[in-house]
């Protein structure tokens, strides 16, 4: 098993589908998660709530919070599909494919696994590359705020550092890939 690929896949999965990591989880019938479950699924008891969170947003500009799956503006969620098609492809679709490739890479201890690990590295590199170049380029369309190419570094958030860790793991994973 390629453990580096597995952890890389877990991190990409977190960034692609989650808004935050809940910390200090408590189990009970109150809290935002329970309200959400009750509203949409009719489930009311018992489910988890939490004290605090680690946000997975890549960056914050004004009232916009930018994630791999979309943006959050004044508390309303918008997926990239609704906001910006190119970002949908480069950020969400690529990360979705990266998750699949990396989990195949973690399970297959052969040439296919290694190829998948390399493919994962390419996808993660493209995601980071697009985020650093494409988001400042399209920032006026997405958020209405003009961002310089180096301006983005003032707005980075915790999610970006997780993505960097993901990139480091995806660089190591093809090198350390076990071959049977």
């Amino acid at each position, binding site marked *: 098993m390629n453990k580096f690929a597995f952890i890389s896949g877990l991190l990409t999965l977190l960034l692609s589908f989650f808004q935050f990591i809940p*910390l*200090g*989880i*408590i189990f*009970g019938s109150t809290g935002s998660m329970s309200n959400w479950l009750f509203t949409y699924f009719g489930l009311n008891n018992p489910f988890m709530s939490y*004290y605090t969170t680690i946000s997975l947003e890549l960056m914050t500009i004004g009232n916009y919070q930018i994630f791999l799956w979309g943006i959050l503006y004044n508390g309303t969620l918008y997926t990239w599909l609704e906001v910006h098609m190119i970002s949908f492809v480069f950020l969400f679709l690529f990360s979705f494919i990266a998750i699949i490739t990396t989990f195949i890479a973690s399970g297959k201890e052969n040439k296919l696994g290694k190829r998948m690990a390399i493919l994962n590295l390419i996808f993660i590199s493209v995601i980071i590359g697009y985020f650093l170049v494409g988001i400042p380029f399209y920032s006026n369309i997405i958020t209405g705020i003009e961002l310089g190419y180096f301006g983005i570094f003032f707005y980075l958030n*915790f999610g970006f550092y997780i993505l960097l860790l993901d990139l480091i793991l995806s660089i190591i994973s093809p090198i350390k890939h076990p071959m049977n």
Partner: protein
Amino acid sequence: MARKSGIIGGIIGFVLALIAEIPIYQNIVISLKIYSFKSTEFYIWGIVLNNGEGFGLLRLIFPENIIALTFWLILIFVSFNSIFASPKKSNPRNSLKLYNLNTLLTSILLIVYTIQIIITNFSNIGATFFNIGIGYYLLALILVLNMMSKNTLKKGE
């Protein structure tokens, strides 16, 4: 066969890193705090004040936020290591290295928290055991489980 003690140690690590309370029956809950001081509860992931308000490790002031984040990441790292080192297929030499690393890192965490507990209870040493939470003992259990896995691995060789 997989070394179960290592896997259990990893799961306990994740529980400590993410969960505050586990309900047992009706109003009976297990609080996973490391220790408490003046009705503030200290967990690996942050703190809970007297009024029930919780603060995550990133909301603390500098440099406490960096230190708390490092401790949290160390625990996550130990948990991953503990699980990954334990399957039957894993390379025994690498597993031994990981168990040694886990033992070292968990010991560092325990020493730091012990110093914190002693300092916060310095004026009333008798209250120390009253203020120590189950989280502290579970951290010690992770250390013991890693040492057990290491011994099992050595015996197997």
